């Protein structure tokens, strides 16, 4: 017979297990971050940020070209992803409930869940096959991943803006498009900017779509029509090798990436929390 005591004991046990789960779930992050900082910090030097990679097997060198490459790829991706994403987000927020908007929202979520390697082979088929490996192709692949991310976060942020604001503007004689842009969009801008940064952080670390598009480059390159280096590509190439020197550089590169991602994530958390209170968790 299930006595009250045994039931409470079970309850206590399960509660204890959830505490354990909470500890176990936060452990990997701390372990991984700790390891990256420990291994990577010692390899971070000015040389890392300013030098090019050395020939195979030689000691030293840096990831300057990969850092600039990642920045350029983010730039191209943002040029594609931002306008389209924000535009689509505006559309979805305003035409909520229409079948087309629902379909677009659904497909954006689907696109978000697509494996990035599928995006990579798509970009290869579309661009690289005809015109060779290029930073542009890499940017297009990453931009395609940015579009659904920015679309959804823009829509979410726009929906938080109270309708009374929009109605007041319309009542004052603002044109509809003007209302959307100058009033609603501007109000939601902080949240949207945060969403954009989160999307940037996400694509900055992507490797698979770049394998067949940007390819990689040992030299300093800012050309869009040439292959280009990128931090995640270098980390991948270095980590599977046997060279200790390359491993050092890989950890340092990982530290740079993680730091960037962390700063953006913390900032995003801070911005959305302060604007919308503890309701957004």
């Amino acid at each position: 017979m299930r006595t009250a005591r045994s039931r409470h004991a079970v309850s206590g046990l399960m509660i204890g297990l959830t505490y354990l789960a909470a500890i176990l779930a936060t452990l990997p992050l701390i372990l991984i971050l700790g390891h990256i900082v420990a291994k990577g910090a010692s390899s971070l030097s000015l040389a890392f940020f300013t030098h090019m990679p050395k020939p195979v097997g030689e000691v030293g060198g840096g990831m300057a070209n990969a850092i600039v490459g990642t920045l350029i790829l983010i730039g191209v991706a943002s040029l594609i992803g931002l306008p389209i994403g924000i535009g689509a987000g505006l559309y979805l927020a305003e035409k909520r409930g229409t079948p087309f908007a629902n379909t677009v929202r659904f497909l954006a979520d689907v696109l978000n869940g697509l494996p990035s390697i599928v995006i990579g082979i798509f970009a290869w088929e579309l661009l690289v096959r005809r015109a060779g490996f290029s930073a542009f192709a890499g940017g297009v692949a990453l931009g395609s991943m940015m579009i659904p991310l920015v679309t959804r976060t823009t829509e979410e942020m726009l929906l938080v803006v109270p309708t009374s604001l929009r109605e007041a503007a319309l009542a004052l004689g603002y044109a509809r498009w003007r209302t959307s842009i100058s009033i609603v969009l501007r109000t939601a801008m902080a949240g949207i900017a945060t969403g954009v940064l989160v999307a940037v952080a996400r694509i900055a670390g992507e490797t698979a779509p770049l394998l067949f598009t940007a390819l990689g480059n040992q030299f300093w390159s800012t050309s869009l029509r040439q292959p280009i280096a990128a931090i995640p590509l270098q980390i991948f190439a270095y980590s599977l090798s046997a060279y200790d020197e390359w491993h050092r550089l890989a950890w340092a590169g990982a530290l740079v990436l993680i730091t960037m991602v962390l700063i953006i994530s913390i900032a995003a958390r801070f911005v959305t929390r302060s604007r919308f209170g503890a309701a957004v968790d």
Partner: protein
Amino acid sequence: MTSLPAEWLEKEKDRRILRVEGSAVSDRIYEVLTAACALVVPALVIAIALAIFVAAWPAFSKLGLSIVTTSDWDVRAGHFGAAPAVYGTLVSSAVALIIATPLALGVAVFLSEFSPTWLRQPIGFLVDLLAAIPSVVYGLWGIFVLIPLLREHVMPFLRDTLHLGATPFFRGAAYGPSMLAAGVILAIMALPYISSVSREVLLAVPRSQREAALALGATRWEMIRDAVIPFAKSGIIGGIMLGLGRALGETMAVTLVIGNRLEISPSLFAPGYTMASLIANEFSEATSDLHLSALMAVGAILFLITLIVNAIARWLVWSVSRSQAR
């Protein structure tokens, strides 16, 4: 209420009239532009599907279903049976879910029910941050930390100390790169997705449910088990499917730790392969057209599987949020 100055009112009236006349065109342009942007999303999905399926067609028409049903991947002979890769994708994701789901649900329940309020944000944030770590960084960590750990401690422990080596799942030499390693890394990567969605839906369960159960004499655990979780069930399943979708498509972390061997083996200690890793390793050099097409076919299948899983996940989560809106 103070009245507005007359001159200002006159100017505003003119301005308003002008604006109403001119704004029709601008509004139109605005609508068309945003609609065009929105159109990009379905266009992109269709373009991706088209590009991949058209490229995969030669392999599908020549090899048919044998791409997924046979295990003979012999490039020179023109045989492309990717069944081991499909097996690897499914098994590594299954292992990931088996490890991640209890942990994720545990954290979600902890955060929504038991956690002191000051702890909620930080822990939630820390778990969510796992989703932000790039895949290749997971792979790097996997090679140098996880694999040695598995090889030297966990695998011998499972196989010998716990005598699980008697079962077919934990048999064989402990090399390190293995299905188990892939499953563990995928579990860490899927955890934040399951946990975040579960947390949301659990928090959204109305207090009345909880209070009613407690009033009827349930212990806290029974309240959660019988009143809260069933209410949030479809959302939680949606979260699990979201995690599954992520695990199915993961490439870089898996490629670095799974061992890259096209062979179906029941043992988790054995090296394996996934569809995504196969594409990553062989794509840039597929020498024959049939080889390239076969890889595209594998990509097409991966596309379909993740599409379906993510669609179901979204529908489940969406339907929960809709029912809450009532």
